[in-house]
Each structure stands twice: as C-alpha cells, then as structure tokens.
C-alpha cells in the first residue's frame, strides 16, 4: 500500500517536473538567451526574441524526456532548480534596457 502510494507520488513529482518545471525552465531560458544572442551573434533585438523563443522549445522537450528517465527524481528537481536559478541570474544581470 505504502509502496504503491510512493510510486504514485513519484510519478506525480515527475509529471510536475516535466510539465511545469520544464515550462518554467524553458521560459527562463528564452529570456536569458536574448541578451546572449544580441551580444554574440549580432542579431537585432526582435530577431533574438523570436530565435530565443524557438530555441527554448528544444530545452522543454529535453526536460520532459529526462524527467521520465531512470535518474532519481529528487536529482532531476535539484538540477532543474539549479539551472533555472542560474539562467534567471543571467537574465537579471544582462537584461537589456
């Protein structure tokens, strides 16, 4: 009984990590990519915004697949939180005015 509850909780945790965690991660990535693209590739702001939004889907897809891989789900959460906060700080520091 407890075993099956634990199993269900783990699936829920993985689903939340995949769907919401992945979405938040790729949203933040799309924001963080914009200053990077503008400064390194010479794209205009408008182009970088579009390119960043398109590229961020790749990360969403990867997060979803990885969330259901055999890694420990706590580890997935930890990595996801770490990367998201790292990207958030990139966005905060380099955000264009």
């Amino acid at each position, binding site marked *: 009984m407890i075993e099956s509850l634990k199993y269900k909780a783990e699936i829920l945790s993985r689903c939340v990590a995949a769907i919401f965690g992945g979405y938040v991660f790729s949203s933040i990535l799309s924001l963080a990519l914009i200053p990077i693209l503008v400064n390194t590739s010479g794209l205009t702001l408008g182009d*970088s*915004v579009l390119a960043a939004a398109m590229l961020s889907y790749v990360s969403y897809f990867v997060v979803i697949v990885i969330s259901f891989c055999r890694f420990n789900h706590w580890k997935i959460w930890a990595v996801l939180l770490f990367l998201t906060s790292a990207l958030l700080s990139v966005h905060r520091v380099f955000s264009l005015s």
Partner: protein
Amino acid sequence: MKPDFRKCMIWLHTYSSLLLGWLLFAIFVSGTLSYFNPEISQWMKPELKKGIHSTASVNHALNHLQNHAQSADRWRIYLPNDRTQHWKIQWNKGRVRTTQTLNIQDGATVTVRDTKGGDFFRTFHYTLQLRGYGGRYIAGVAAMCMLIAVFSGIFTHRRFFRDFFTLRINKIGKFLTDSHALVGIITLPFCLMICTSALMIYATMYIPWGTEHYYAGGQREHNKHIIPSLPKLDKKSALAEPLTDFSLVEQQINQLWLGSDQIEYITVEQPSRENGRIIINRVKDQSLSNQAERLVFSSVTGQPIAGYPEQSTAAKVRRIFYGLHEAKFADSALRWIFFILGMAASALIGSGLIIWLNKRLEKVKKQHLGHTIVECLNVAGIMGLLLAILAYFQANRWLPQDIENRASVEVEVFLYAWLVSLIHSILRPTNKAWIEQLMVGSLLCFSLPIIDLYQDHQRLIGAIEQANLTYLMFNIMILMAGFIFVKTAFWLRGRTIVPSGKVLCS
C-alpha cells in the same frame, strides 16, 4: 518508477498519447484534410465553373471595382488557378468589407452558397473551434504530447528492424500492434516535422515571456518589429484615376517572375489617390517559405516603386516552418504523399488508442470505469469525428441556400453530429456502436455523390466533360472511404468475439 530507461519510455509513450489521443486524432484528420483545402472548398461551392483567366479578366475585375467601389480604401482580386476556380474580388471601405465572386466564363457576378468550405478544417485543426478560449494553446499542448509520444515510441521497440518487417494479419490484436509499429516508423519524420513546425509557428505565443519583457505591446508589437511592411499611405493625397490596363504591369511581372500564372492575388491600396499602389503576391509553389514574393507598383502609372524591405533571418526561419507545415510548395504528387502520410499518422493515433484498450481488457476480468470511458471515447473520438465530417459535407448539400448564417449552421451540424455519435457510443454496447456507426458512415459516403446527381446532374457531366479532376477525385475518395467503412464493419462483425467471450476489438 521502474528503473529501466526502455520501460520508462514505454510508460511515457502510453500515457502521453492516451491523455490527448482523441484530440490529436481530430487535429491530424482535419489538418490532413486541409492539404486539400482549395479542392474541398471548390467541391463545396459547385456554383463555381472551371475556366481560364487572362489579362483581360484582370482588366475586367479592375473595371468592375472601378465602377462599384471607386471610393474604397483597398481592392483585392484573387485570381483563379488550377486548384480553385474561385475568382473573388473584395473591397474595404473603412472597416466594412464586401466580397463578390465573378464567373470565370463571362465575368458576371455569381452568388456562391455561404460556406466555410475547406477553411473550416484548417481553422478547426489549430483553434478547435475555440478561438479566444485557449483553443490554440490546447492544440500546442497536443503537438508537444505528440512529439513526446513519437520520440518515446522509438524506444518501445527492442528489435527495431525485426519489428519493422513483421506483420501478422490473422489476429486482430497482433495485426493492430504490428501495423501500429510499421506505420509509426514510416510516419516518424512526418510527425516530427509537423509537430515541430506547429510549435515553431506560434513560438512567441506559447513562450511569450521574451516579447512581454522587451516590448510594451507584447507579441503584437514584436511582430510589427520583425515583419517587413510598406510605409503607411496618406489617405488625403490628390485624387487620380487608377490604371485600367493591367498588361503594362503584367509585362514587368513576366520579366521578373518566370513561369506562367505566377500571381496569387492583386491588392490595390488607395485606388483613387495619386499615391495609390498595386501589390502583387506571387503563388507559393516556388519556395519553402510561406511568405509570398511581392512586387509593388504605382496604381496610377503602373511603374515599379520601392518594395518590401528584406525579411530578417529569424523571421524567415519562422516563415519556412510555416511553409513546411502548410506544404503550399508541394506539387500534386508531393501533396498526395503528404496527404497519405497525414492519414497514416491519424491511423497511427487511432490504432494506438484501440491497442491501449485491448491490452488492458485482455488482462482484467472485470471492466474498470476508465476502460468504459476509453471505449466510448474511442468510438466517438475516431468514428464520431469522421461521421461529423461527413455530416458537414451533407449539410453543405442539404441546407437551403437562403437561410441566415448558413456557414455557421454547417459547422453546428458538424458539432451536433459529433455529439450524437458520443451519446450513441454511451448508450450502445461498444462493438455494436462501432458497427452501427461504420454503417452510418458508409451510408453518408455513398449517398453524397447520389445527392449531387439528384440535385444537379450537370455537375457530374460537366466535370467529366471539362476533365475537372478536383470534383471527380473528391467523389472517388468519398466512395473509397465508404467502401472502407463497410469492409471494416463486416470484418468486425465476424471477428470480435474471442473464445473467452470477451470483446477483443474495443
């Protein structure tokens, strides 16, 4: 969760597809039908006659607009082509738009029945008739689910090549599993292309945070920045007569754009002013992008003036994804391949849903509520959708021409037919529901060409005389669909009960 990558992927495959399977089926079927959007519209508007257009017909349209809409802000002429005979003229005055259809043979105006035609399938497949209520977001979620399902589906095969070459046709359960795997592999690149491009078209709508952060007006403002546009016209400049002889412009176009019938539509902005301009949109069968090439001329002198600025790379990439998704570049052979792949992908989704249920029903002694729900949704989601589409076609022929909002009544017929199918699937035992709905479907299919003959036999005779392939192919496809429905119904009747007394095929 079981600590094995392959098992994890099987789990992911099962539940990501089950979650939105029926929705995906509806999206794929209606999306596949939109490959033939102009042809379906042509069939649904039998008033349009086949013919050939020339410079004289453009001149005729310009004269017609000059006589009827001199003070309009914008004229537009859609030229007929080999896919659709709809010669449509439109003018805008302020916010009011008037549309007329011209008969291609004599240039007189014709009244065409009010219908959304094939455009209904096109809009339905990404808005789900819920535009303004998050329909496009739901479709986006579905596209992502499909991507995940396709990707994780690869890992469910331990022996990829052996599975590919296996097809056991004697047992229905085995046959479905084998063909599911086979079709899955064949349509894999197609599904990846379609789902990725679908997401990319609306990239900034699904992940809007970049545009929200950098542009005060969000997406709209962002689009204004990256989509090239012409300078705004002064609406108060001096009056001038627009040119009435299009051949001057056409000569210049022919030099720049090689090939025949290169014009998709002609726009005239501020036709009565001296700063008015003519914008020519090229047909899109030359490039992967769905951004048509455009040329701009003065509407008074017919001389070329400054055109659209070059599009940026990022915007071009989005246009190419758009173009890939719509496949306007495809000639008819390639379009048929896309159509067949789209149908195969729909069959993939449908068979997957049925397999899910079969596998579980084989194992359990007593049916779970979840199983019953899936059973009903399988009938209503797969067969019900097809019935609804057929009902939409039938409504196009049966509804009187003069009722109000005829186009939306047709759509209502579509939705109600779907609802009726759902109710029927709940009331009847599943196997009976399948067979009965298949029979109704085939009846609707077979009666469609007969109704056409009964209403106006000139349609068929005319189509044969003029070798109107659009009309003939539509009827052949409908008859084929009807035949498949009958075949499946009889096949199901013979095979479904396995010795244990359980219903095998849903």
